[in-house]
């Protein structure tokens, strides 16, 4: 089960990592770990011009909710916030923030790292990279079988 204050959102507006991390500060917590993922300019020497993200939105929201529920089971955490951006993103712009608050920081680090790994594996969002002279849909890893998710 997710809690009343957990949140998960898709947006086409710029994401403010501080706003996501500080939206709720549970009074039994002392630490929030936030992952700020953004558009890298250079990957192995190749320059990215910008990215385009698209999503199967209702399913993405359901999958995010499932991830948060599972994170509450696996880690001693109080609150999770996930905000993912869609549409065109320029270099350096935030594509995703995952924020995890916990009474003890260890669980916040573990939960946050688990959530970004699973998000990249299961939440139906795709990015197209546009570089000088071409564009390509970035290939995710298909380390997911349909069976895992029934």
């Amino acid at each position, binding site marked *: 089960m997710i809690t009343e204050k957990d949140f998960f959102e898709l947006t086409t507006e710029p994401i403010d990592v501080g706003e996501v991390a500080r939206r709720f500060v549970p009074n039994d917590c002392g630490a929030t770990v936030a992952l700020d993922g953004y558009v890298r300019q250079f990957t192995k020497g190749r320059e990215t011009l910008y990215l385009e993200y698209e999503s199967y939105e209702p399913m993405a929201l359901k999958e995010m909710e499932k991830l948060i529920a599972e994170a509450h089971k696996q880690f001693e955490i109080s609150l999770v916030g996930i905000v993912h951006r869609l549409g065109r993103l320029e270099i350096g712009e935030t594509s*995703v923030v995952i924020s995890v608050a916990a009474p003890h920081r260890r669980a916040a680090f573990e939960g946050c790292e688990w959530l970004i790994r699973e998000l990249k594996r299961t939440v139906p969002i795709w990015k197209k990279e546009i570089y000088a002279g071409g564009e390509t849909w970035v290939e995710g890893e298909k380390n997911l079988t349909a069976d895992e998710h029934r």
Partner: protein
Amino acid sequence: MIVEVLFFGATAEATGERAIEFSLSENVNADEAFAAILKSFPGLQQNFKNSLLFAVNQEYSGGDKIIKNGDELAVFTAVSGG
């Protein structure tokens, strides 16, 4: 019966479609339904062979789950968000 089939990202570009109505026989299961869709869009399996994922009503699906009239099916490649 008729289902809706959605494509996203690379599968939308490959098929030239984002959402179509698709005819299926009664009582097909998810595996049979997706096999029928791939048969109609041979480019999908050619281009994305092992990276295709399937969903029924916004849940990852496959196997012998029975498809119903009006279900929302989706065919997409391995996700790459984050």
